[in-house]
């Protein structure tokens, strides 16, 4: 009997533009970009300068305070530019790709034959360690920590979420290989969360504890399962990895090459033909997207509509993301827009069957920011045993003790994404939680 997690609080937002179950290949881009800002909490120190030639897997930069954590080039090519922002903060490392890749070769072996330290060292050298995040704080893990358990969610319950059963169907061998490597890293269990409602090729794996998840989004978020099976206490570390990254880790140990190829979903109502594509992380998709969109009045998101990053300008697939979502921008004012019954994307009585109807929601704010007034709506999409408004208020004033008592160590910003969506006060709750976690991390060390 598999483990189960069931929730009732939450919300499924069914958007138009679900990707069809077919895969094509995105042609190789001319340039690939690595954005150090994407690796939250990392202080980059460059290992290359403009004009250097790098192989795929060569380090580009490392973490100033933990130089073992390296970040490597997804392709072979020449470092064309390093874009800096305010106070010389490194924003982008742009690599002009060679016609075909030459790889740095790593001395890998079957995970079964490697020790924990060897596995860790290989992951750190190749840059794949960056795919492992930790709870609490939702940051890149610390390699010297002993994680209590590792959680993997193969159920993306977010709007237009990736179907990992489909996306990884050709990579199951690599995925299993990756799981074997991960198992070396913890003395605890490795959990895999899958959609309980549908058949899946994951539930036959015996390396891991399977958790079948039932209920609305955010049931696929690891926090929900962590709370139930391995609740986090002070000093505990739990690691989380995305299944697509595990497949990358698996194929790395097979081949000895760092080749971050992903199967991503191109989804959303503004995509002509939503479907899956294979592409390398960091790819500049400007050329590719040119004839794929309905029009130009769009918001392009790396990731899903709730937690993704706005890449309308640079159109670069972020390191962690397995999805590009394109929705209407919706930059227009609405006459008497506050009138009830006018706009459709409201979860309430004049929109019965909200979760079944296919919606086409744009990126408009639909109102202005106000003080917290309606609390019940926020609680209705928070399945964790947490009082969201109280926690958010503690985060707002930076009260460390209160935040800890109210459970901030158990959450990640993504768990609050639905609160962003539903809040009638238009408060950006994910950002408040991120700030709260940052304060906690500084205070607790």
């Amino acid at each position, binding site marked *: 009997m598999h483990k189960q997690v069931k929730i009732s609080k939450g919300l499924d937002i069914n958007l138009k533009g679900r990707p069809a179950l077919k895969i094509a290949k995105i042609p190789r881009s001319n340039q690939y970009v690595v954005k150090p800002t994407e690796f939250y909490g990392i202080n980059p120190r460059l290992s290359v300068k403009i004009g250097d030639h790098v192989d795929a897997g060569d380090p580009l930069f490392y973490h100033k305070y933990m130089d073992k954590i390296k970040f490597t080039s997804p392709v072979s090519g020449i470092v064309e530019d390093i874009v800096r922002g305010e106070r010389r903060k490194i924003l982008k490392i742009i690599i002009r790709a060679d016609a075909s890749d030459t790889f740095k070769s790593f001395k890998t072996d079957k995970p079964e034959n490697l020790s924990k330290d060897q596995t860790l060292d290989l992951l750190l050298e190749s840059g794949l360690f960056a795919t492992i995040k930790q709870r609490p704080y939702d940051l890149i893990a610390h390699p010297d920590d002993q994680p209590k358990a590792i959680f993997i969610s193969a159920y993306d319950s977010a709007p237009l979420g990736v179907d990992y059963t489909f996306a990884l169907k050709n990579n199951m061998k690599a995925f299993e290989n990756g799981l074997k490597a991960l198992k070396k890293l913890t003395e605890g269990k490795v959990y895999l969360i899958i959609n309980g409602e549908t058949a899946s090729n994951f539930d036959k794996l015996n390396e891991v504890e399977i958790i079948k998840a039932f209920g609305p989004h955010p049931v696929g978020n690891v926090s929900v399962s962590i709370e139930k099976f391995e609740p986090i206490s002070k000093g505990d570390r739990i690691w989380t990895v995305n299944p697509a990254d595990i497949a990358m880790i698996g194929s790395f140990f097979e081949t000895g090459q760092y080749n971050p190829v992903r199967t991503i979903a191109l989804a959303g109502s503004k995509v002509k033909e939503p479907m899956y594509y294979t592409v390398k992380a960091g790819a500049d998709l400007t050329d590719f997207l040119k004839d794929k969109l309905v029009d130009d009045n769009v918001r392009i998101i790396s990731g899903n509509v709730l937690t*993704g990053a706005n890449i309308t300008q640079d159109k670069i697939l972020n390191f962690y993301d397995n999805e590009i979502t394109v929705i209407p921008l919706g930059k227009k004012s609405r006459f008497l827009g506050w009138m*009830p019954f006018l706009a*459709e994307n409201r979860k309430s009585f004049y929109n019965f069957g909200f979760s079944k109807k296919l919606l086409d929601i744009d990126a408009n704010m639909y109102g202005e920011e106000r003080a917290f007034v*309606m609390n*019940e709506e926020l609680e209705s999409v928070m399945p964790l045993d947490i009082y969201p408004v109280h926690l958010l208020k503690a985060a707002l004033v930076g009260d460390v003790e209160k935040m800890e008592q109210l459970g901030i160590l158990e959450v990640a910003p993504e768990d609050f994404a639905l609160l*962003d969506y539903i809040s*009638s006060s238009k408060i*950006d709750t*994910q950002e408040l939680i991120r700030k709260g976690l940052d304060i906690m991390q500084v205070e607790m060390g």
Partner: protein
Amino acid sequence: MKVLEKFFNKYEHLFLEGGKYEKYRPAYMAMYTFMFTPDETTKKGAHIRDAVDLKRVMFTVVLALIPATIFGMWNVGYQYFHQAGMAFSNMDAFVYGFWKVLPMIIVSYVVGLGIEFYFAVLRGHEVNEGYLVTGLLIPLIMPVTIPLWILAVSVAFAVVIGKEVFGGTGMNIVNPALTARAFAFFAYPTFMSGNEVWIPKPEHADAYSGETILGALGQGHHIAYTWKDMFFGTIPGSIGETSVLMILIGAALLLLTRVASWRIMVSGFLGAAIMAFIFNLWGANTLMQLPWWQHLLVGGLAFGVVFMATDPVTAAQTRKGKWIYGFLIGMFAILVRVFNPAYPEGVMLAILLMNVIAPTIDYYVVQANIKKRMKRLVKQTA
């Protein structure tokens, strides 16, 4: 609409930073955003947002109040003509009441919104939408004969002392509309209670009796009204409170749109019913003898529980807390009503009291969550 938007855009520069009327930007924005929801797109956090905002929430409550308002207007006329012993049509009654109530609504909005705008400009923050609801609630819980100046003073008191000193909508402790009523009740008691304030007094009435049911019962009198009168609302009372039917229609809208908490409504009526039932068993005076279910129909209980107790800002904020909060409001309302006939309006005092206690209820509910968490931390580290 293009014309109107152009008009706004044309003068926007005056209110921008460096503009001539920069200080008055909150007032400009309040006007503009009332006409148009801005074209702003999401910058941080989730890329998509629900089409609800506070304006829509507040307007939904206003919509829910409309049935009770229209009926209240009609009832003012109905009671008047009835007392005067004149023949009248429904339209006559409504028109008469309309011209009595409309000035009250206008005074309430003008004074209240005036103060809101003043504070917004003074503090440089946006005008909050909370007053859209409060502005209609205040006239509805007043007797129709109240002099407009008392209404104006009460509104000013409620907005300044009840809300703005705490920082505006979302920060206030007690319900502003009830603050206005409590102020008027204690400052000008002769205009707020007694037998003659609920119905405009006809000039040549032989036997004028305009006392409310609770007032009559409090005096030990017997009442001539049936439960149907109480339910449909053809009885004297504050303008909006008399018709339970109209209040329930509003309640249905609030519950379907999930603007108000069903937990508070259910537990509020439950608390009142249980308390009244206990008093039925006791039966020491006429108020105690009123059947428990009729207690739910008379006075301001239904109106208070549906529209005032559910104010999300001043109610308990946690689900468990809401059950306790609503239940105690119902209990206290009946308790005050029965034990202190000088204050037949127990609901007002019960809600104000529970507004003050609500944060304490929440404190204990949240504390239970914290204790559970802390216990786990200790167990695991031990």
